[in-house]
């Protein structure tokens, strides 16, 4: 398969059009601030949702503490950019790397656990991360950490694109296939010679890395980060995006992230209803369409190309 086939060219073109369009609109001051904040949030949540999907959907593990890794990325990048005066790129990368390291250390022992036990463990990890930042005066404790806004649309957009491409390529690589086999039947996968722990930890570490990147983006855009920002509710929100879009579908996670962020923005006028509706939405999806909007399928541009060729994707 050529890299520059018709399908990839169409996607590249679409990405460039979206980027250029929004960039032009920002330059022309056509986008009111409220919408630009939400555009940024969409980028952050797309990274978070697709990376959580890698863990929960593709590999079939179950994390409900993703906000913890976002927090690690956010705080570490803030330390690099504010305390060490590092450049933005280095700050975000440092956040991602530390987050990945923590993800690796946490994942190694805990990923042996199954389903709901693993879920509760990750919830615990998320809570512990929050407590650690609460008790660390170096990063402001409860008062929070003030970070100047250095992230702009270009950063957010391209980092999102890069993250999505990394996840897409990982999923479609040998490693990704191994992860899927672990999801489908761990015992069978083991019998086929796949080291399931290795792939679970690999997916978890990569997911944590990308979650950390998203945290770094968030911290360097939102002016102020506090431990409470990365509470269980944030983890839950990311989970809803993934479940809504369909566990296992990357494009589903993207759709879920966009829909939930937009929905949340609209419902901010009816705060009492926002959480009730989100909770109901989650229950209804689980009851009537547990596979989410897209299931494990991907929305792709296969119908543009020749039949058979791109269906494999």
């Amino acid at each position, binding site marked *: 398969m050529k890299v520059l086939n018709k399908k990839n060219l169409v996607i590249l073109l679409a990405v460039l059009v979206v980027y250029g369009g929004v960039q032009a609109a920002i330059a022309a001051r056509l986008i009111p601030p*409220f919408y630009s904040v*939400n555009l940024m949030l969409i980028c952050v949540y797309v990274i978070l949702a697709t990376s959580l999907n890698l863990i929960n959907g593709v590999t079939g593990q179950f994390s409900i503490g993703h906000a913890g890794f976002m927090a690690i990325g956010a705080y570490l990048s803030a330390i690099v950019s504010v305390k060490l005066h590092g450049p933005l790129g280095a700050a975000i990368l440092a956040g991602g790397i530390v987050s990945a390291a923590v993800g690796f250390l946490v994942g190694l022992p805990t990923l042996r656990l199954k389903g709901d036990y693993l879920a509760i463990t990750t919830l615990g990890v998320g809570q512990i991360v929050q407590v650690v930042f609460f008790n660390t005066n170096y990063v402001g404790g409860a008062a929070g950490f003030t970070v100047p806004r250095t992230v702009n649309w270009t950063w957010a957009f391209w980092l999102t694109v890069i993250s999505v491409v990394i996840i897409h390529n990982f999923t479609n690589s040998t490693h990704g296939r191994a992860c899927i086999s672990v999801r489908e039947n761990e015992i069978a996968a083991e019998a086929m010679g796949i080291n399931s722990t290795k792939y679970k930890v690999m997916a978890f570490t990569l997911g944590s890395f990308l979650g950390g990147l998203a945290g770094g983006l968030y911290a360097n855009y939102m002016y102020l980060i506090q431990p409470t920002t990365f509470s269980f509710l944030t983890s839950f929100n990311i989970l809803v995006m993934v479940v809504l879009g369909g566990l296992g579908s990357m494009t589903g996670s993207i759709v879920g992230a966009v829909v939930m962020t937009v929905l949340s923005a609209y419902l901010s006028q009816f705060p009492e209803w926002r959480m009730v509706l989100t909770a109901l939405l989650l229950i209804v999806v689980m009851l009537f369409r547990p596979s989410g909007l*897209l299931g494990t399928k991907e929305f792709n541009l296969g119908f543009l190309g020749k039949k058979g060729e791109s269906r494999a994707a």
Partner: protein
Amino acid sequence: MKKIFAFLTVGILCLSLAGGCGTTGAAAGNGGGGTIKVGGDLELTGGQAMFGQEAQNGIKMAFDQINAKGGVLGGKKLALDVADNKSDPGEATTAATKLVGDNVVAVIGPMTSSLVAAATPVVTDSKVPLITPSGTNAKLTMAAGGKVQPYIFRPCFIDPFQGQVGAKFALGTLHAKTAAVIVDQKSDYAKGLADTFISNFTAGGGKIVDQEKYASGDKDFTSILTRIKGTNPDLIWLPGYYNDDGLIVKQARDLGMKMPFAGGDGWDDPSLFTIGTPAALNDTYYVDHVANDSPDMVQFVKDYKEKYGHEPNAMSALSYDAANMIINAIQTANSGDPAKITAELDKLTGFKGVTGEITIDPNTHNPQKKAVIKENKNGKGIYLTSVSPS
């Protein structure tokens, strides 16, 4: 099937984008007509939801009253455009951005200091004034380099003042020589009050014998109280919020600890006595903005109880004053232009609020106000003395 879902997805994407564009236009068209919109960046849900809801009540009452009198600028009604900041700093930024996009002439809230800090860059970029009714952290109105934040105002005194008043009162009136401090680890406010209390108390010759921490929302404080009991201080300085304060004092009394407690304006709420018991809360004191039984407050308390069925607290009163400061500024400027409202707020002098006379210092944007000290006696916070800024 695959295609159907593919189209469904595209449909949702288009809808959400189209929806976005649609309201962009609508928002731009708003703001004129018969109403003037004031934004409320308030804690309606989340940990500090009580503050936001009390504030919303206070602001709405002020607006209803002026609207009943025919509104401002020759018949324009004031409307409160509320955005929930979910008690979260990130959301406070988002909420402020939304309000500014709605073309509000001023923003009231957030109520808590860290959220105000998060909303400040947004309103400053858009040159819209923001009044925080109860953000008492000293740094809020000051920008880097000691300059005043041009768009941030408040009707309340600041944390260092509360800590200073508390220490003076503990040393002078209560004759305390030793004190223990209990701080809510999750609250910037509590930490600020604790720090200034400690520095003023030790400067005045007192000794801090123990410092304990908790996280707001904890229900069981017996372990830290047992530790303090071992050090037997003359006074416990507890600068937290009333839900925690009531429980802490009650549990301390149940452990046989009889020393006085003192704290800041976070104590001020009628439910303090139902959370703790009136007997347990005897011999406790707090610094406050206003006493509900002061003459300025009588009418407000009466109206508020009539409208909402419960007694107001300092949050509702300060928010009511914040709303009236904006009304006053609109009327004096005779304009709904944010820049002119800011200019009026900047030179506000002798404004008669229900929480006292407010004069904004143009160099710090802090009001010169007295603080009162109240003593809790048999289920009521009774005015004890007032302390002027020194």
